Structure formats: structure tokens, C-alpha cells
């Protein structure tokens, strides 16, 4: 009985996880093209000529959970070593989604440029045994209104 539950969790994790990931990447690519005109810079300050523009704080936050299959896959990887592919795509999604949300928030407030862009990550349920972990990425910066 335990085995049936275990196998179904793995299958459900894989199927649901891949569908979610595929859709998410499609949506990310679409929105990245749409928000292309909101520019992001890591520089702390805008060029001197733009110093007296109105500014707003813009931010985007995302939490994405690991699915059962990814967790098992990463667990096997932890024995063998090497690239944890299962988590790489997850972190990539989270980072891009956070930047997109930040850009969206900038656009909503009428900003076209974001300076001093920073990313912060944290993991929820950090490595606790028996808990499905998730990754959080927080993107923030200063939006300039032209």
C-alpha cells in the first residue's frame, strides 16, 4: 500500500510538475517580450541627467514549490554529485518570474527604467526532512518615471 502511494506521488509529481513548468516557461517568454521596454539596471544611481526624475519603489516576489519527482531526482543527485538539473530549471523560473513581476509593478506605476535592481533568495522549509521545500525570490529596485 505504501508503495502504491509512493509511486503515485512520483507519477503525479512528474506529470503535474512538467505541465506546470512548460506552461510557466511559455508564459515567462511571452511576458518577457511584452515587458521588453521596461529597462533594468544594476547600477545604484541613474545617469546625472536623470537624477531629478520622480522615482518609485518597485518589487516582485515569487515562491515556487518543488514537486515530488524533482525532490526524488535531487535526492538521487545528492548521492551521486553533479548538476541538479531538477532544481536548476526551478530557480531559473523563479528568478525570471520575480523580475517580471517587478517590471509589471514598474509599468503599472508608470516607470520605464528600474535602477539598483537586486535579487534576494530564501528557501522555505530549508532542508527539513520530510518537508517539501520551496524557493522564494524577491526582486526589487528603484523605478524612474520619465
Amino acid at each position: 500500500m505504501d508503495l502504491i502511494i509512493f509511486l503515485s506521488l512520483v507519477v503525479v509529481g512528474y506529470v503535474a510538475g512538467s505541465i506546470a513548468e512548460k506552461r510557466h516557461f511559455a508564459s515567462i517568454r511571452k511576458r518577457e517580450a511584452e515587458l521588453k521596454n521596461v529597462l533594468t539596471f544594476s547600477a545604484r544611481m541613474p545617469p546625472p541627467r536623470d537624477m531629478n526624475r520622480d522615482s518609485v519603489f518597485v518589487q516582485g516576489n515569487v515562491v515556487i514549490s518543488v514537486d515530488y519527482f524533482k525532490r526524488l531526482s535531487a535526492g538521487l543527485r545528492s548521492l551521486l554529485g553533479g548538476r541538479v538539473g531538477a532544481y536548476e530549471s526551478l530557480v531559473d523560473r523563479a528568478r525570471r518570474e520575480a523580475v517580471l513581476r517587478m517590471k509589471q509593478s514598474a509599468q503599472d506605476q508608470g516607470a520605464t527604467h528600474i535602477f539598483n535592481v537586486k535579487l534576494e533568495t530564501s528557501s522555505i522549509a530549508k532542508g527539513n526532512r520530510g518537508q517539501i521545500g520551496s524557493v522564494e525570490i524577491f526582486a526589487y529596485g528603484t523605478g524612474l518615471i520619465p
Partner: protein
Amino acid sequence: MEYENPQVPDEVNLPKSHPLADFSWMLLAVGGATVGVILILALLADSLVGYIPFKLEQRLATTFGLLEDHIPEHHGAGTGTPANAGDNANQEIQIYLQSLADTLIKQDPLPEGMSITVHYRDDGIVNAFTTLGGHIIIHRGLVTRLESENALAMVMAHEIEHIRGRHPIRATGRGLIITLALFSITGYSDSSVLDSLVNYIGFFSTLSFSREHELQADKAALQLLQHHYGHVLGADQLFEVLKAEGDSEAFNTFLSTHPLHDVRIDAIKHFNGSDGTSRELVPLPRALGTH
């Protein structure tokens, strides 16, 4: 402002191989290594465990408290509490079961120092089993479903052969070493999901050992029956009973530590031991028939 954020290639961060392909390779590597280690350890344990004296095994049984629930309370004559009718009947059955075991053992005496104790449990569970220290536990549920003494003798002989083969201590020793080995793998991982996977691999690789023990016990039990009754008629009824009990859970049979019932019934049918003397089933004593 004349800046722009060009669209950059985004595939560089993504794994190049398909997640399932990646997963299969890792599963193969980890699974193969686990099975290999377990088989080696199991074989080692199996060959060394035979050197544990039977006396020590009996002591282990007491230390683990394996029989606390199983030994029926004795209402001795000296205590002054009159035993009720049910207890008397159970005592009678227990004595009968012990004498059946003793008779069977006489056909092929156990090695020096080994002894067998039969316990009867008055409940409906359809089962009989052997535990450390030469103790056989037989449940009423199984006994009442059997139609002849021959079938009951098959149960008894099967369990006796488990004890002769030191199967309980072998299984315990093997279980212990495998559990330790699995812990040393899973203890280092931080993933409970991985732990369950490794444990399942361990479970499946030990199944074959248990099944081998069952088949060995079956074979030797048939020989014992053959010596005692001159034929093995009625022995297959035991497995018919077990089959009828377990049919509702076909999947469990697949996972069971015991071989498939059909395989065992076939083995009995092919056991060519008849010497042409009288082939009659011996009925069960009255005390058992009245349940």
C-alpha cells in the same frame, strides 16, 4: 535615454538532458549499488548466522519479549482459581498440537540442543508462524479451516522445517544488517523521499530470500509428512485455504514474502512420494471440530 535590454538566450540555465533520462540513469546507478551491497551483506549474514547457538537464540526470544502476547496464561491447580471451560479446551488443543509436533519431529529428529514449543492462540486470524527460539504460534482461525490432521501436520511440518533451517534467526540477522546498511545510506541524505525509495529497493531485494526459505520449508515438510503418513494427501488443502483467504488482495500476493500459492500447490502435486500403502486422511480431534 538610449538604453535597451535585449532579449538574451535563456536556455543556458536549463538542463540539457530530459529529466526522465537523467532520473533513470541515477536510479539505475543508485539502485544497482544498493541491491549489490544488500545481496553481499545478506549472503554474509546468512552464512555466519548459523554459528549462533540455539541457546542464545532462545535467550534472544525472551529478551525481545517476542512471546509475551502469545503464551496463554496458565491456571495452575495450586492457584485456587478454577480454570473455565474455554481455557480447558484451549489447553487440550495446545497439548494435542504439541504432541503432533513431537510426533513429526520423531520422523527426523532435530539437531542436539534444539527444541520446539507450540503455542495455540484462540483468535480468528488465519495464520501460523515461527519465531526466534523454536516457538511455533498457531491461530485458531487457521486450524478451524483445515479439514484433516494431514493439512494441520503440513502447517506444523512447515514451521518445524523453518526452525530446523534456523530461518527465524537468519531472517532476523539479515534484516538487522540490511537495516543498518540502508540507514547508513539514508542517514546521510536530507531527502525523506529518497529514503523511501532506497528502502523499497532494499525490501524487494530481500523478498527472494524469504521466498527461498518458504520453498525449502515446504519441500522438507512434504518429506516429513511422507515419512509419517506414507503419503502427502491433504497437504495442499493448507494452501487452498490460504489462497481463498488472500484472493481479495491479488496485489499483496505479489508483494508477499511467501511464494504464490499456486506454485506451492503445484509443488505438492508433483511431489512423487506415494508408496502405494493406504492413503487416507486422518481426521482432526473433536476438540477442534466443535469450533
